[in-house]
């Protein structure tokens, strides 16, 4: 799992070319070349295709980045690190979750290492910054790990013709969650709690907007700052007369929230819907124990999805890492699959960038997350699952209880619907209890 593989090869070749050719130097050179070219069948030296992978491998998003990397490598290894007769060379850089570092690393991958495309990407800030770079440098960018900021694939100032996203986007788990909450659970009044940052407000606002459109209402909104260790004041404040509590709390905040929700007695009284499944994120489940039982969540993946693709994937993933996958691993896997399919579709010729982008947008395949396709803006069309934490074989797991298929980024409406709203979701903090404002169109 190290990225030193690439370095060792470069070093060996460079050292060998400097000495005078002799039997002792030619043999290792041949060996290195043979290794580089992979199986004996493809000894004709087709140029390797360089894929630049930008992921956070340190910092707060380290766990997400590392899991996405595992997923990506799993797929590339399955196809022998080769597509359309070209070897696939993965060049990995740690963007540390910081947009300025990410741009520097993106430049390094493209300008110094000759990467012909960029992929990976977890945080939205990084996605935005690198997208600006990709647009300027005309380098294909495949957001695979997360980077779900909605605006990137919606017609508008941020659109980038060199971008596709196979992971997800901020609004679909919210929209589906609202639909399920209203129609399947019969909830009408909810209290919402979301982490106070752009992604948090955006996600919960989408939930409330869709819920309002259906006829429901949020009677209370609270926004704990990122890094809140003590949710006591927020939980104590929750209006006990609502039908359910709907939340979005990422990272360590989600873990703490899940525990405190149970400890402070709310779980016994009010059902909890975790949009995006951050609180019931797989690594959290063993720690939350029974505090997580019965918690609902909406996400584009569940480790318990019962399809042959997913069961195979989960078994292989568990064998490699000893853990259950969250959404990052399958997202990485799907991103790699999309890249490989697109490379095959253009027969390895990446010089015509727009043709490659068209090939990316045309990919279609079944995957551990469900069936994958992309819309004309480059955003993935996939399934969203409502999951419930239940005991499966002695362990707690997120089990799908409702499936929504063929969900595109504007579901349940169209792009025109999405663009007709008067207010941007991130500006609606403080207005969530006002359904008229939430659904106002211009």
């Amino acid at each position, binding site marked *: 799992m190290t990225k030193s593989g690439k370095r060792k090869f470069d070093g060996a070749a460079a050292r060998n070319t400097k000495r005078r050719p002799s039997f002792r130097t030619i043999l290792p050179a041949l060996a290195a070349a043979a290794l580089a070219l992979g199986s004996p069948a493809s000894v004709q030296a087709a140029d390797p295709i360089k894929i630049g992978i930008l992921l956070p491998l340190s910092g707060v998003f380290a766990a997400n980045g590392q899991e996405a990397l595992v997923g990506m490598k799993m797929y590339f290894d399955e196809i022998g690190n080769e597509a359309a007769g070209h070897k696939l060379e993965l060049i990995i850089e*740690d963007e540390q979750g910081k*947009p*300025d570092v990410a741009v520097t690393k993106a430049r390094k991958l493209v300008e110094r290492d000759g990467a012909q495309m960029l992929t990976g990407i977890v945080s939205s800030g990084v996605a935005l910054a690198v997208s600006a770079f990709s647009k300027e440098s005309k380098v294909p960018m495949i957001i695979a790990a997360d980077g779900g900021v909605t605006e990137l694939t919606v017609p508008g100032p941020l659109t980038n013709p060199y971008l596709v996203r196979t992971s997800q986007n901020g609004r679909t788990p919210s929209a589906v969650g609202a639909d399920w909450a209203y129609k399947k659970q019969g909830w009408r009044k909810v209290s919402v709690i979301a982490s106070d940052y752009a992604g948090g407000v955006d996600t919960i606002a989408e939930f409330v907007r869709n819920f309002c459109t259906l006829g429901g209402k949020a009677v209370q909104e609270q926004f704990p700052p990122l890094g809140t260790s003590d949710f006591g004041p927020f939980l104590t404040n929750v209006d006990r007369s609502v039908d359910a509590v709907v939340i979005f709390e990422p990272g360590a905040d989600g873990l703490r929230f899940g525990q405190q929700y149970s400890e402070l007695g709310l779980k016994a009284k009010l059902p909890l819907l975790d949009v995006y499944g951050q609180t019931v994120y797989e690594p959290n489940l063993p720690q939350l124990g029974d505090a997580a039982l019965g918690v609902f969540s909406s996400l584009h993946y569940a480790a318990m999805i019962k399809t042959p693709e997913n069961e195979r994937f989960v078994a292989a993933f568990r064998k490699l890492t000893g853990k259950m996958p969250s959404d990052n691993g399958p997202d990485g896997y799907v991103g790699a699959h999309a890249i490989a399919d697109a490379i095959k579709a253009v027969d390895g010729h990446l010089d015509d960038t727009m043709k490659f982008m068209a090939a990316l947008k045309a990919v279609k395949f079944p995957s551990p997350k469900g069936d994958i396709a992309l819309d004309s803006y480059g955003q993935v069309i996939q399934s969203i699952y409502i999951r419930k934490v239940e005991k499966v074989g002695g362990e707690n797991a997120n089990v799908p209880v409702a499936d929504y298929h063929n969900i595109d980024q504007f579901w349940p409406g169209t792009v025109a619907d999405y663009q007709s709203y008067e207010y941007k979701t991130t500006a609606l903090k403080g207005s969530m209890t006002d359904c008229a404002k939430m659904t106002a169109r211009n």
Partner: protein
Amino acid sequence: MSARSRNAIALAAAILVVVLALPHLLKPYYLGLTSKMLIFALFAMSLDLILGYVGLASLGHAAFFGVGAYTAGLLLLRAGVGNAIAFPAALVASTAIGAGIGLLALRARGSYLLMITFALAQVVWSIAFGWRSLTNGDDGMPGIPRPNFGWSLDNTTGFFYFVVIVVAIAALLLAMMVRSPFGLALRGIRESESRMQALGYNIWRYKFVAFVLASSFAGLAGVLYAYYNHFVGPEYLSVIQSAEALIMVILGGAGTLIGPAIGAAVIVFLEDFISSMSERWTLILGVIYVLVVLFAPRGLIGLFDDFRTRRARP
């Protein structure tokens, strides 16, 4: 012409040759990295003015860096003005914030100053992070355009020359400042405030002016960084960024101007280089810092000085 001026001109000529040659010697990526090194060299030098020359330790210097970057970003992206207005406005804004924080913080000394500057910088950060409708919060503002003087700065070489010119002028100004009577007074204050006071100097006023000047230069570095990345985000204002500046100054050698510039270049390069080599780059960087402290407690410049004096002795 004296030997000293001849040496200075020779040095300047050599530097000019190197600067002109670099774009032809380095790959575009490394040329870009050099621009980044120059930008942070300026940032570090601005901190050295107050840390090295006056003895004021600030853990909030990134506030000025960030305010410069954000002002430029906001004016360019939200108000739609051009760089002709945005660039100077950014400098004015960071200077104003510098004056504000200086007024509130400079009564304190030593570790208390460190903490107050940290606290006030955190407030500025909270505003950038929290005022989402204005700054886009933690997503940051991408798409910041570089200035256009007829010669485009959008290619690496053009931007490199721009940064070299700006940083060289700034560095020259800073060097002139520290050699002037004003600079000497600052050093006097660092040595002994009571003595300077007895000599009739208005200590607070000197500290304040130095602080404000430092904030302007930091703001300049911030704008350059915003141009470099075409982007600004709350990380520009974070305590981590302030701590990095402090580390650059200390590593290079406080109170020398050239030391912190070198420290900044070394750290920018090391961070980039090591993080591509190993996943454990933070660990390696930490070990390097510890080793530097053990073997070069006066910083890299101190090491260089020791080496020179040791060679001079028979």
